[in-house]
C-alpha cells in the first residue's frame, strides 16, 4: 500500500456497497420480529416462526459468503502484484 504510484481507487465502490448490504440485511430481517411472528404457513408441521428463522441461517450464510468472495476480489485488485 506504500509505493503505488497510480491513483488510489475510491473508497466507496459498487462492490463495497454490495458487501455492506450483504452484511446488513440479516440485521433488518431478524430484528424486525413482527414480520415473522406468526404460525402460518407451516412447513411439515413446523410453525412459520421457526422454519423462517432457520431458513435465515442459510440465507445469511450465503450473504456472508458473497461478501467474503467480493472482499477477496476487491483486496486482490487493490494489492495486485504486491503479494
Amino acid at each position, binding site marked *: 500500500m506504500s509505493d503505488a504510484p497510480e491513483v488510489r481507487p475510491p473508497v466507496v465502490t459498487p462492490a463495497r456497497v454490495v458487501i455492506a448490504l450483504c452484511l446488513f440485511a440479516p440485521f433488518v430481517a431478524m*430484528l*424486525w420480529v413482527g414480520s415473522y411472528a406468526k404460525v402460518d404457513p407451516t412447513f411439515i408441521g413446523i410453525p412459520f416462526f421457526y422454519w423462517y428463522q*432457520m431458513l*435465515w441461517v442459510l440465507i445469511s450464510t450465503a450473504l*456472508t459468503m458473497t461478501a467474503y468472495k467480493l472482499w477477496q476480489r476487491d483486496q486482490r485488485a487493490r494489492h495486485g502484484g504486491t503479494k
Partner: protein
Amino acid sequence: MNDGVNGVALAVFILFFLAVTVMGFLAARWRKAENEHSLDEWGLGGRSFGTWVTWFLLGGDLYTAYTFVAVPAAIYAAGAAGFFAVPYTILVYPLIFTFLPRLWSVSHKHGYVTTSDFVRGRFGSKGLSLAVAVTGILATMPYIALQLVGIQAVLDVMGVGGGENTNWFVKDLPLLIAFGVLAAYTYSSGLRAPALIAFVKDTLIYIVIAVAIIYIPIKLGGFDDVFGAASEKYTAAKAGGLVPLEAGQWTYATLALGSALALFMYPHSITATLSSRSREVIRRNTTILPLYSLMLGLLALLGFMAIAAGVKVTNPQLAIPQLFEDMFPSWFAGVAFAAIGIGALVPAAIMSIAAANLFTRNIYKDFIKPDATPAQETKVSKLVSLLVKVGALVFVLTMDKTVAINFQLLGGIWILQTFPALVGGLFTRWFHRWALLAGWAVGMIYGTVAAYGVASPTQKHFGGSAKEIPGIGEIGYIGLTAFVLNVVVTVVLTFALKAAKVPDGVDETSPEDYTADAGDPGVQVELPPATAGKTQ
C-alpha cells in the same frame, strides 16, 4: 425421576470420557513447537490453527454444553421466547466479519494475547486495560461454573450421585473426578487439548442432533403433533406460546442483538480467534460457522418434543437429558450424554485458559511483575487456570445453582460494556481513554442495578435479563440499554475531554497494522508445526 443407575448409558459415557482424557494429555505433543515455554504456545496453541481446527475450536467453544441444555430448556418452559438464540447466532457472523480480522492483524503485529493487551496498546492506558481484564475474568468465571451445571444435569439423569438426600461427597464425586481430569490436561497441554477434543465433541453432537431430529418426531407422530401438544401446554399454563406476542417482540430483538454484540467480547472467543493462523482463516470461518447455528435451531426444537413426549421435570434444565433417556435406547442415550459432558469440558478448558491469560498479561505483568519472562508468564498462567477452575467448582458445590445462572446473566451484561473500547478502538482512535472508562463504569453500574431489580415468580432479584427501557417504555434486554448509555457517556465525555485538552495517551499501533496478514513484514510468523500434518 431417577429410577436407579442406567448401566449401559453410564458405561458408554465413561468410555468416551476416558478416550478424550487420553487425547487431552497426548495433545501436548500435537504440532509441538520448539519453544514451548511461551504464552503463545500454551495459551494460543502456537497461533497456528488452520480453517478446520479453528472451526471445531470456535464451535466447541461458543456452543457450550450449557447452551445445549439451556436453550431447549427455555423453549420447554416458555416457548418462542427461548428461540432468540437462533437470530442471535445469525447476527454474530456478519458482525465479526467486520472487526475480528482487524483484531487478528493488530494482535499478531504486536504480540497481543488478550483484548486488554490491545486496549492498553491502543489507548496507552493501564487503567482501561485493567477494567477490560477484570470484566473479562468476572464474566468468564460463572460461565465455567455453568459448564459444571451442564455436567451435573447429565449425571443426575443417569442416576449417578443424583438425589438430594445422598451424602455430599458421593453426590459430587463424579463431578470432582471430571474436573480433576480436565484441570490436569489443560495444565499440561494448554489450548491444544480442547482443540483436539473439540473434534470428538462436535462429531458426537452432530450425530446426536441428526438422529434426535429425525427419530424423535417419528416416534411422537410428526411435527404437527409435537407443536400441537406444545401449544396446548402453553395455553393451559397461561405462559409462553408458539410465537412471541406483540409485547415480547422488543425483548426478543434486543436480546438477540445484545447477545450477538457481546459474544466476541468474551475472552474465550478471542482466545480461540487469535489461535488461528491467518486473517483468511477467520473470514472463512464466518462463512462456515453458521452450520452450528442451524444445529442450535434444530436442538431448540427438542424443547417442544420434550413437552410432546410428556417429560415432566421440575427443573427445566433436566428436560433434554431426560428426553434422551426416555426416547433413545440406553447405549445411544450414553452417546448423547457423552456429547453433552464432553461439550462442557471443551469450553471450560478454553475459558479457564482465557481468564488465566488475562490475569497473567494484564494484572500480573502490568501491575505486579513488569519484567516477567515468557517462561514465568506461562507458569503463572498455568497456575491461574487451575485456580479459576477450582473457584468455579467451589462456586457450584457451595452455592445454589441459581447463583451461577444469575451471575452468568450479569456476566453477559458486563462483558458487553467492553465493546466500545475494543471494537471502537479497532476502527478509530477518536474516543478518549477516560471517556471510555467512564462509559464502561456507567454501563456496569446501570446494568447491575437494573438486573438486581428484576423479580420473577421464583426470585426477588436477578429474575431475568429484560426490563423496561427508559424513555421507550418497551421491555428490552438490560445489557443493550446499558450499552447505549455507555456509548452516549463515552461520546459526550470524549468531546468534553478533548475540549479541555486532557492528555490522551500514546497509541503504539499504526493504521496499516490493522490490515496486516501473515507473511507481511513485521508480522510474527509462527514456528512451523514440527509434528502432525497440515490441516487443510
